[in-house]
C-alpha cells in the first residue's frame, strides 16, 4: 500500500510537532520515510502515522527570544537561505546560509550601508547564496 502525503502537509505537521512547546532553537531539518513510521510528542498531545512514503522539510523559528537590556521578549531575528537537492530518496546536495540574532540585524544593516565600497557589499552578498543570485534593487547598496 502506498500513501502519498503532500509535502506541505508533512512539513507543517513536522513543524507543528516540533513546536508543541515553545521552540528554543532555530531548527532546519528533513525527514524521509519509506515504510511505517509512528511518532508522538512527549506531552502526548499530538502524533503522526505514516504508512508508505513521506518526505518533509521543516524550518522552525522561535517566536520570541529574551531581549538583552529590555523588559519582556523580542521576535527572533533570522535570515536563512536554504536549498535542498534530492535524487530518488536520498539527499544529494544541501546549501544553507543563515544569520541569527544581532549578527542578522548587523548583516542586513551592512548590506544597506551606503558608505561602504561596492566590493565589500558584494562580498557580503556572496556569503548568502540567495542574495547573490537575486537581482540588486535600488537602496540595496550594490
Amino acid at each position, binding site marked *: 500500500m502506498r500513501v502519498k502525503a503532500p509535502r506541505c502537509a508533512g512539513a507543517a505537521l513536522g513543524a507543528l510537532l516540533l513546536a508543541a512547546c515553545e521552540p528554543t532553537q532555530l531548527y532546519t531539518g528533513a*525527514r524521509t520515510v519509506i515504510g511505517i513510521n509512528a511518532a*508522538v510528542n512527549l506531552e502526548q498531545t499530538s502524533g503522526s502515522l505514516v504508512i508508505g512514503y513521506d518526505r518533509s522539510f521543516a524550518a522552525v523559528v522561535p517566536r520570541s*527570544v529574551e531581549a538583552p537590556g529590555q523588559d519582556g521578549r523580542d521576535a527572533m531575528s533570522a535570515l536563512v537561505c536554504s536549498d535542498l537537492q534530492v535524487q530518488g530518496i536520498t539527499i544529494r546536495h544541501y546549501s544553507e546560509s543563515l544569520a541569527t540574532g544581532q549578527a542578522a540585524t548587523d548583516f542586513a544593516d551592512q548590506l544597506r550601508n551606503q558608505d561602504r565600497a561596492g566590493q565589500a557589499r558584494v562580498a557580503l552578498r556572496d556569503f548568502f547564496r540567495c542574495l547573490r543570485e537575486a537581482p540588486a534593487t535600488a537602496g540595496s547598496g550594490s
Partner: protein
Amino acid sequence: MTPRRAAVAALLAMVLPGCAVDGIGLARAEVVRADGAVVVRAETLGAALRTDPAEAGLAIGVTRTLTVLPDRDGAPAPGRYPFGLALRGIAPAARIRQVIGLDLGFGGRMAGFTLGYSEDAVFAAVPAGASIIRRLELVPDEPGLTFLRSCEEASRCE
C-alpha cells in the same frame, strides 16, 4: 531447537554482528577533511544505540551516519577508524542518519519508531539567543566537497 529458541537465535544473529554505542563498537568510521569542516561517515551493521538525550534511540539493521563538524581543536583526525569513533560532546554543524531496518527513537521532544527506511537530517539547530552567521555546503556523496564557514560578525565573514 524449539521455535522460540530459533527466533531468539535469529534475533541475536541479526544484532550481535554489529553492536555500537554512540558510534563506538562493532562499527566503522571514516573521517574526511573538507573546507572549514571535518566530515565523519560511520556505518554499523546490527544494533546501534544512541544515548545523547537529544536523539536517544536504538536502531537495528544498517545505520549510516554522516556528521559535519567544524574544523577546530578537538575535531577527529582524518583517517579510517575500524571500531567507530565517539563524537559525544562535539556539537555537529549538520547530521544525516539513514537507517534500514527498525529505528526506535525516544529523545528530544518526540518518541516513535520507523520500520523500513528512514533518513533524518538536521542541518541547523541554533539556540534562540545565539548571534551567528553561517554558510554550509553539504555533498553527502562527496564529503571532501563540503564547505563550512561560521562567524559571529558580518565583517569577519568576508
